[in-house]
């Protein structure tokens, strides 16, 4: 009877599992429970609490007043919100693909077969170690319109002096360029993906007389697409939350050209004591992020190669 019972399938969450499977499922869940706990407490709960807070008028202290969708209504009518949204999307749309390109370049550079490659790898990775805060501080000096090294370097190519952080046409571009200094870790991931490509594939291509560009375009690039997908999804999340460089270097200026959503959220909550309003904005940012991530993920079956045959 015991044996019979053990074999009887038990329904669990639409899945038909045997007793044994169920037991291992529970054991498995127990093993990942610390992570599940963290996920629930530090992600799911704040997310739900945020949506709730977005429906209130709340100064951060004392009692919150329920005001329904008023914060969202106000946001839709707020020109600075739309400007910040535009800035944030502008940043993400350019910084993320550029980030992929730079990381691929870094990975290729790190993948060269020369003896002193460890030194180059370290050098290429070095800027990524510096915290964004420190990089931003430094960039203020490097991007000085008159004495900055960036303009000095560009002057050799006949580029006229640019006021990177003070000209609304350039300020976002300056921050996009700054972000590329942090491409090292993604470059490492791409490097790992490149190293995982069997050399036989390249050997076969060489026998067929493929140029190195063709090898890159038809072998390397398609085979690292899973890593690229990962980078894009992560990059969109980080890009939409761009904050530190704008906070340090420009405070949202000039003329609100670097007022990003995350900065506006911060100012609304901590400067103007409008936590409900800020929470509503965070909610919108989350939805945009989720929507973009899902779209990219859905599209991935068209361009990501998971199987190397």
């Amino acid at each position, binding site marked *: 009877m015991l044996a019979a019972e053990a074999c009887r399938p038990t329904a669990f969450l639409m899945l038909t599992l045997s007793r044994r499977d169920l037991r291992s499922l529970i054991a498995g869940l127990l093993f990942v429970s610390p992570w599940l706990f963290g996920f629930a407490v530090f992600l799911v709960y704040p997310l739900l609490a945020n949506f709730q807070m977005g429906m209130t008028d709340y*100064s*951060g*202290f*004392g009692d919150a007043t329920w005001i329904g969708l008023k914060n969202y209504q106000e946001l839709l009518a707020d020109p600075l919100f739309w400007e910040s949204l535009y800035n944030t999307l502008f940043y993400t749309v350019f910084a993320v693909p550029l980030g992929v390109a730079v990381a691929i370049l870094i990975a290729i550079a790190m993948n060269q077969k020369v003896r002193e490659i460890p030194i180059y790898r370290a050098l290429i990775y070095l800027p990524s170690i510096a915290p964004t805060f420190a990089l931003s*501080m430094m960039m*203020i000096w490097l991007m*000085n*319109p*008159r*004495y900055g090294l960036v303009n000095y370097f560009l002057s050799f190519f006949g580029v006229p*002096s640019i*006021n990177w*952080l*003070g*000209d*609304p046409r350039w300020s976002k571009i300056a921050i996009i360029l700054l972000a590329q200094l942090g491409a090292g870790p993604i470059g490492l991931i791409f490097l790992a993906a490149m190293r995982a490509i069997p050399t036989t594939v390249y050997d076969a291509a060489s026998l067929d007389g493929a140029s190195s560009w063709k090898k890159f375009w038809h072998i390397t690039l398609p085979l690292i697409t899973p890593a690229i997908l990962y980078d894009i999804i992560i990059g969109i999340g980080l890009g939409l939350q761009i904050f530190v460089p704008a906070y*340090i*270097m*420009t*405070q949202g*200026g*000039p*003329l*609100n050209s670097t007022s990003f959503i995350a900065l506006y959220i*911060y*100012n609304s*909550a*901590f*400067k*103007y*004591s409008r936590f409900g309003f800020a929470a509503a904005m965070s909610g919108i940012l989350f939805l945009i992020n989720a929507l973009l991530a899902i779209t990219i993920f859905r599209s991935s079956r068209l361009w990501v190669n998971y199987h190397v045959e």
Partner: protein
Amino acid sequence: MALSALLAFPHPPIMKRTLLLLVCCCLNNAAVFGQSQIKFWYGSSTDPREEKGYQELVNEFNQQNPKVQVRIEKVPGSETDAAKMMTAVRSGAGPDVYLLDRFTVAQRAASGLLKDLGPYLKKEGKDLSHEYLDFAWKEVVYADKVFGLPIGTDTRALFYNKKILREAGIDLAEFDPTKGPISPERLKEIAFKLNKADASGAYTQLGFVPWLEQGWGYSWGYAFGGKFYDPAQNKVTPTNPGVVAGYQFLYDWAKDLGPEKARTFVDTYWQWPSVGTLPEEQDPFLTGKVAMVLTGQWELPRIKKHAPDLDYSVTYIPAPNGLKSSWSGGWSLVIPQGAKNPDAAYQFIRFVTDAHGQEELAKVSGMFPTLKSLAGRKDLFPPDYEFFLSLLPVAQSRPPLPVGALYWDKLKEAQEAVITNSKKPEEALQSVLTEVQPQLDHFKK
């Protein structure tokens, strides 16, 4: 279980050490038992001279009050940014005393961040409202309750480099304060004579950039006789004719300099608006990049330290019709909600903001006291502070509003639009009104 039994536990070496450590900790705690610990926080943007003043006062207070120990902690934060304090208070790890920019007290009080000092004042049984300068006291009161005690104030004036002016053949007598403020038109004539550019047309020296340093909207609005708030109607008034005239002055000045070229100059030598990233010694007035600058008395010790040979003097902020104007800011000591030792914190605040504390602080930091009893005390400061002290009676202050930080930021935004000539003053200031007034109305309820 007896201690000896515990010590006989199977893993004696480790266990013993742990216990020993524990006992040490307990003893240590016992030593401070019965002693109140006060956490006193100020923001990282605090002037180093003021920091020194507070440090000395804390040492003195700790010596006088063995039962209370005040500890200073410097935390991230600036004038309008109190994020660190807010999050700390929410998590129950907030300070007992915080140094808060006085014009934001109303706003922080309205949000429920600060403790009402009413009960403590009542317990002390002394009416402090008449002891402090009126404007300073008004700034710490919100909805008829007192939320902090005022500490330190300042005034703003026009600094001018005599050497540069003299070399351009300007008669320095025009700047003599006894003749009152110079007119904006005349100032412009003089300043534009001092502008220099290199071969590419980029400015290398400017006579005056009215929006540099303390050239905020408030400075020029007040100089042109403007009002920023109408208390009778509880309305912000950024479109007041005087304020508009002040912004128009900035608009025209920028237009004549060329907004982009001016911006490049400012970003090169001052790195606006990343205030605080420029080392003191590179202040464009000290390096002679600008011949004149509108700023406060804190510039005096900087000049003494970094450019002792600078030949300069100070006069009134330029204004039409000889209007003498300036404005004053300053700080306040507040007790945030959730303070562990509010009683001792109050005792400390009283010590610092009372006559002795303010006198000592003034001597070290150069901040003016907020007590009426110390108002005429020129002897607390070096002689070059005298002109700034003389401005106190004409100085105005920013309206203490529960939307103070928002109003400040929006006025700054409007100023940026005006000096880039991307918006006309009326238009820029109108949007300040439409964005700030609804938030202010919110607090009337």
